Structure formats: structure tokens, C-alpha cells
């Protein structure tokens, strides 16, 4: 009797301790994903049968994905993928596919994907639906490690129907441009344009086509594509700046100075384009307007000398404390940063970088999932699932913030080096001017002859006979609708 009682007690406790895979499956099929997730988690930690662990990992990941916990689901998919290809790892292909799908919805983050790519797997084993995801990020990893041949090979393997195809074409265009294969580069960017899902992709394609033409010294064509970037775009100012350089190289100094005039308006006081002062100075130099050259250099120093000080203070303060630097930039973006005012232009430029935006997205989604865990069922709490997911999500958030902070501090350091280089250039120009070596200076700025017949109005647009134009004289008042439309009417003072 006692023996029977002991046996009954032991078997009862084993039912409670060991997870019930079949029950979990039933819950999943019925659509009761919360319950299914808790049960799968229990089976995963206390599998009765050996194969149950792997199956429950898959079940847990699927349940979490169905509930919209994408990052949490990616944790368990990644575990399956990192195990590599084997007979036992029957969900490898499906897990890989799901990771690709999740990454299209919520960016997994560069560090997460890099870990996945470390898995040793023969490319032929990569499932069809995940090939785009795998080869695209393999290419990106190689690209940023300067393995350009490897990157090119990887991007070429991205299938045409994949959601990563357009992004891969973009990188292939950049690689072709780096190899000076301008025609091929343009055709890649044209494909990006025709396959573009978003306006952003269209704009980036136009910007890069313009850059390829610029590299090939086809400045008129470059300006056509720069002019395609709309005024409301984040890329507009960059296009205007590069367009100013194109005008300079075409000897269209009135248009060069006109483009630069926009940058020096109060509307863009917090945008970081110090090179515009140097370009302005050398344009005036080519027009033999030496007083204006000195004024440009003076204005550059007036505006950017305080920036140096604040920027160095910032870098010294946050070196090693990368997460806090990320938070500082976030604070700036919210408009609640009152310190380091002179460095706000740099913080602005850093906050517009893709790596900041991607990290912010990762943090936002991770935080959202953490908040949702608070409302999760008691089963999740009791089983320990909440604790495990919370730990993972908090770590993911912290890693994203830290990694982005590292790159952003590096960006700030690069800004210091950039400013220093420009500062040295202005000192060189000033010194040569003082010494009267103006001709020598001008000879250094070799400019190709311009297409004299073509004329440009504001907005980098060519004037045509049918143009209906309006004309506003600038009277020391900047109007928002006039930005980008300035053209100087200035004559060269150089003696012939």
C-alpha cells in the first residue's frame, strides 16, 4: 500500500515538474498562444523526452511570434540557428526563414545578426526564403570590414524576389562606383529606383546617381539628379551642398555662392556644414574678391571655434560611457538638452545617422515588449518565462545603446578631425593671401571649363525658354520658401 502510494506520488510530481509537450501543442493549435508559450517554456527547461527540447524551442518561438513578441521570438530562433545544420536540428531552415521575416518587420540589430552569421553553414543549406537575409547581411558585414570582393559576391547571391534585393543593389552600386565602373553603378542605382518601396530609397538612389555623375565629372547630369531631391527630404541639404561643389567645378560661381547662402541662414543654425565656409572662401578667391575671402574665413572661425571647445569637452566626458552619450543625443533630439550648446550642430548630425535611428528602433521595440510582459499571464510568471525574456530584452536594449554610443562617439571624434582639417585649410588660405601668393593658391584649385551655354536658376534647375520664373531680391531677410533658390549676381574682380 505504502509502495503504491509512493509510486503514485512520484508519477504525479513528474507530471507537474516535466512539461507536457502535447498539451502545449494543443494550446498552440487552438490559438491559445499565451498558454502554449508557458507550456513550451516548461518543456524546454524540463523535457521528458530528448527531442522535446528542440521541438519546444521552436514551439515557444512560434508562440511568442504569434503574440507579437518579435525580439523575444528571435532569441529562441537564434538558438536553433546557432546550433547549425544537423539531423537533430530539424527546425534550422524554418528558424532561419522566420528570423529573416522578423528582421523585415523589426530590425534585429547589427550585433544580433553578426552573431547569427558566425554559424558555420554551407551556403547551399540556407533555405530559399532566408537566402536574401543571409547573403545581404554577410555582404554588409564584409563591406564594413573592407572585404569588398567578398561583399560583392555575397550581394550578388541575394535573390531578386527577396525583400533584401533592393538594399543589396544599393551596395552593389556603391562598390561599382568605388571601382570606377560608373555605367554599372548607375544601372544598379536605376534598378534601386525602379524597385524602391519607399520615397527614402528613391531619394538615396537619386543622390547616389548624382554622385556617380559627379565622380565621372559629368556635373550637369549630376545636378539634374541633385535637383530631384525634394525640399522636405532629410537628404535635401546634403544634395544642395554637393550641388554647390558641382557648380564650383563648372565655374558657375554665382550658383555656388547661391547654394551656400542657404546654409548660412538662421533656419540651419543647428546643421553641421562647416565646409560651406571654405567653399565660399575659395569661390570668392576665384573671383578675386579678397575681402570676401577674409570675411568667409572670419565667419568660419567665429562659428566653429566655440564648437571645438564644447566638442572636446563632450568627448572627454563621455569617452567610455557610451550608453550615456546615446542618451545625451536622445535628449538633444527631444529638445531638452541645455548644455553643450555650441556642439548642438554635431549632435544634430549624429542623430540623423542611420545607426542612431536603427538603435532607437531596437530600443523602442525592446521597451515595448518589456512593458507588455508586465501584463503577461500568471503562468508566465510562475514558469520563469517573464524573467528570462526580461533579462534578454534589457540586455538587448543595453547592447544596442552601447554599440550605437561607441560608433556615435567615434563620429564625434571624426567631426573634430574634420573641423581641424578645415581650420588648417582656412589658415593656409589666409597665410597665402597675406603673403600675396594669390595666383599660386588659385592654381591649386584646378577647375574644368564650364558648359557656358547652360544656365541655372535656384533649386539647381536649368533655365529653359518655357520657364515661368519668379524673382525676389534678397534684402537681409530669409524666407523659408526661398531657401535653396538663391543665385548671386556677382562679377569677377580679376584683372584679365
Amino acid at each position, binding site marked *: 500500500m505504502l509502495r503504491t502510494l509512493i509510486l503514485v506520488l512520484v508519477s504525479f510530481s513528474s507530471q507537474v515538474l516535466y512539461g507536457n509537450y502535447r498539451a502545449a501543442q494543443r494550446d498552440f493549435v487552438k490559438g491559445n498562444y499565451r498558454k502554449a508559450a508557458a507550456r513550451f517554456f516548461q518543456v524546454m527547461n524540463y523535457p521528458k523526452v530528448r527531442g522535446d527540447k528542440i521541438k519546444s524551442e521552436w514551439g515557444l518561438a512560434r508562440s511568442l511570434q504569434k503574440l507579437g513578441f518579435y525580439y523575444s521570438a528571435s532569441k529562441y530562433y537564434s538558438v536553433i540557428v546557432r546550433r547549425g545544420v544537423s539531423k537533430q536540428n530539424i527546425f534550422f531552415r524554418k528558424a532561419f526563414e522566420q528570423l529573416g521575416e522578423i528582421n523585415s518587420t523589426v530590425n534585429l540589430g547589427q550585433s544580433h545578426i553578426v552573431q547569427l552569421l558566425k554559424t558555420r553553414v554551407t551556403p547551399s543549406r540556407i533555405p530559399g526564403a532566408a537566402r536574401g537575409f543571409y547573403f545581404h547581411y554577410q555582404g554588409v558585414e564584409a563591406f564594413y570590414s573592407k572585404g569588398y570582393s567578398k561583399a560583392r559576391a555575397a550581394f550578388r547571391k541575394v535573390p531578386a524576389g527577396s525583400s533584401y534585393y533592393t538594399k543589396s543593389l544599393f551596395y552593389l552600386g556603391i562598390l561599382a562606383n568605388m571601382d570606377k565602373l560608373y555605367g554599372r553603378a548607375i544601372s544598379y542605382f536605376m534598378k534601386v529606383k525602379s524597385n524602391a518601396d519607399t520615397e527614402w530609397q528613391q531619394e538615396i538612389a537619386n543622390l547616389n546617381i548624382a554622385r556617380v555623375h559627379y565622380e565621372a565629372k559629368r556635373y550637369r547630369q549630376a545636378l539634374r539628379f541633385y535637383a530631384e531631391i525634394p525640399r522636405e527630404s532629410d537628404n535635401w541639404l546634403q544634395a544642395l551642398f554637393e550641388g554647390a561643389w558641382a557648380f564650383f567645378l563648372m565655374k558657375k560661381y554665382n550658383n555656388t555662392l547661391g547654394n551656400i547662402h542657404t546654409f548660412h541662414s538662421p533656419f540651419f543654425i543647428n546643421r553641421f556644414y562647416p565646409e560651406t565656409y571654405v567653399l565660399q572662401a575659395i569661390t570668392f578667391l576665384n573671383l578675386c574678391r579678397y575681402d570676401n575671402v577674409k570675411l568667409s574665413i572670419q565667419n568660419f572661425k567665429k562659428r566653429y571655434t566655440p564648437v571645438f571647445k564644447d566638442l572636446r569637452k563632450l568627448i572627454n566626458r563621455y569617452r567610455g560611457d557610451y550608453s550615456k552619450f546615446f542618451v545625451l543625443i536622445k535628449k538633444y533630439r527631444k529638445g531638452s538638452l541645455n548644455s553643450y550648446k555650441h556642439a548642438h550642430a554635431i549632435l544634430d548630425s549624429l542623430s540623423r545617422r542611420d545607426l542612431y535611428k536603427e538603435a532607437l528602433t531596437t530600443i523602442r521595440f525592446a521597451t515595448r515588449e518589456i512593458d507588455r510582459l508586465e501584463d503577461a499571464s500568471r503562468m508566465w510568471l510562475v514558469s520563469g518565462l517573464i524573467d528570462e525574456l526580461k533579462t534578454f530584452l534589457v540586455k538587448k536594449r543595453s547592447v544596442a545603446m552601447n554599440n550605437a554610443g561607441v560608433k556615435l562617439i567615434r563620429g564625434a571624434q571624426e567631426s573634430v578631425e574634420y573641423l581641424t582639417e578645415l581650420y588648417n585649410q582656412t589658415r593656409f588660405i589666409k597665410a597665402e593671401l597675406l603673403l600675396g601668393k594669390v595666383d599660386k593658391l588659385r592654381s591649386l584649385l584646378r577647375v574644368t571649363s564650364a558648359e557656358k551655354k547652360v544656365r541655372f536658376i535656384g533649386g539647381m534647375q536649368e533655365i529653359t525658354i518655357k*520657364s515661368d520664373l519668379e524673382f525676389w531680391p534678397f534684402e537681409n531677410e530669409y524666407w523659408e520658401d526661398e531657401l535653396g533658390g538663391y543665385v548671386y*549676381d556677382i562679377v569677377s574682380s580679376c584683372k584679365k
Partner: protein
Amino acid sequence: MGNKTYCRIVVLCVGVLFFAVPGLSAPRQEYQINVIRPKFFVKKSRTEVGADLAAVLNQTFTYTYLLSGAIVYHLTDSLGLGVTGAYGLTVNKEDRDVLKDRFSITVDIFATEWIAESSLLWTPVYGKYQLASGRLVYFDTYVSLGFGMMGISIRKKERGNDDPVDYPYSCYSPVIGAGQRFYLSKKTSLRWQIRDHIILYNGKRCAPAAAEENEPEFSYYHTIVTQVGISYFM
């Protein structure tokens, strides 16, 4: 006043003039900066269709309200040809009834019933204005010169008769006007205008039974109409 004082005053005045008047004291810029860009709103070869509410301003004893519609074809950005039609409703003012009831004075009424005209519009002024919110409003100002017909109803007391009689009268009338358009978008604008319709009135021909003996043969009447409306550019 001595010479010294006089000189001091002259120097003071010149100094004030030099610093107060911009351009005199400021260093002369040797170059000009302009904005040259495609026009925000192009009217050339576009048809404007508008609807307005109008009111006659210069009638002492009545209110006249008209519903007006116009179609304008813009030949260029500054020149357009338009046709306008309006139909009105006249309501007596209280003053008229008081004069009649308390003082037995019957006043003559010229009530505008309808207007039909064509006009030439010239837009010499194009500008923009910034609101406090920072939003920009583009506008233009035009003058119009046209010719058309007006239908009026003349209410006058006949000789030897206490009750006034209605005399319908239609006449040609030249019209001059001016107005403005404020552009809400590249297709729509709010507009207002003021127009003077000049009527040549021959009392003895139009209302012979009511004409005074010493009434001049011809007299001019001005009907000043103000309109506010919206227009759509196709």
C-alpha cells in the same frame, strides 16, 4: 542765431540723416543676391472658375445681395479674360419704411436684379505674406475693365399717384474694378473684389410717368459691388 549755432544744427541734421536713413551709412554691397525659381502659382493657360457672394455698397435704402459666378481664362500670368453673371435679391432697409410711414416720403429705389458682363483682368502685382504661424500666403492684385449689362428695377412714384411703381430697366454698363486673390494651394484661392458698374440712366425714356419735368435727360448712377468668394483653377 549765430553762425556757429547754425553750423551745429546743419551738422546735426546731416548726421541724423546719415545714420537714420538706411543705405546712406551702411557699406555699399557690390553684388546682389536674388531668388530665381519657378513660380509657385502659374495662371497662364489655366481656367479659373469662381463663385462669390456680393453686396451692393452704395444703396441708401435697400440691401442688395447677389450670388455671382465667374469663368476667367488666363492668357498669361498677368492677363485674363472673364465672364461674370450675378443674380440678386433686394431687401428694404428700415429707414425706407420709417420715412414712408412716419413722414410720407417715398424714396426712389434702384434695385439691382442681375448682372452679366465680360472683362479684361490685368494682374500687375504678385506677392507673399508671412502669417504669425510662419505659414506663407501668396497673393496677387488685379484690376479689371469690362462691359456688360445690368438689369435693375426702378421703383418711383408716378406724378399724381401716391403709390410707387416698378419699372424694369436693363442697360449697358461699363465696369471697372480691382481685387485680390489669396492662394490656398496650387489649385484654389480665396478672392475678393470691388467693382463699379456705371449706369447711364435716361429717366424720361425708362419711366416717363414718373420723370420729373426738370429731370436731366441722362444721368449716371454708380453701383458699387463688393464680392468675396472662392475660385478653383483647372
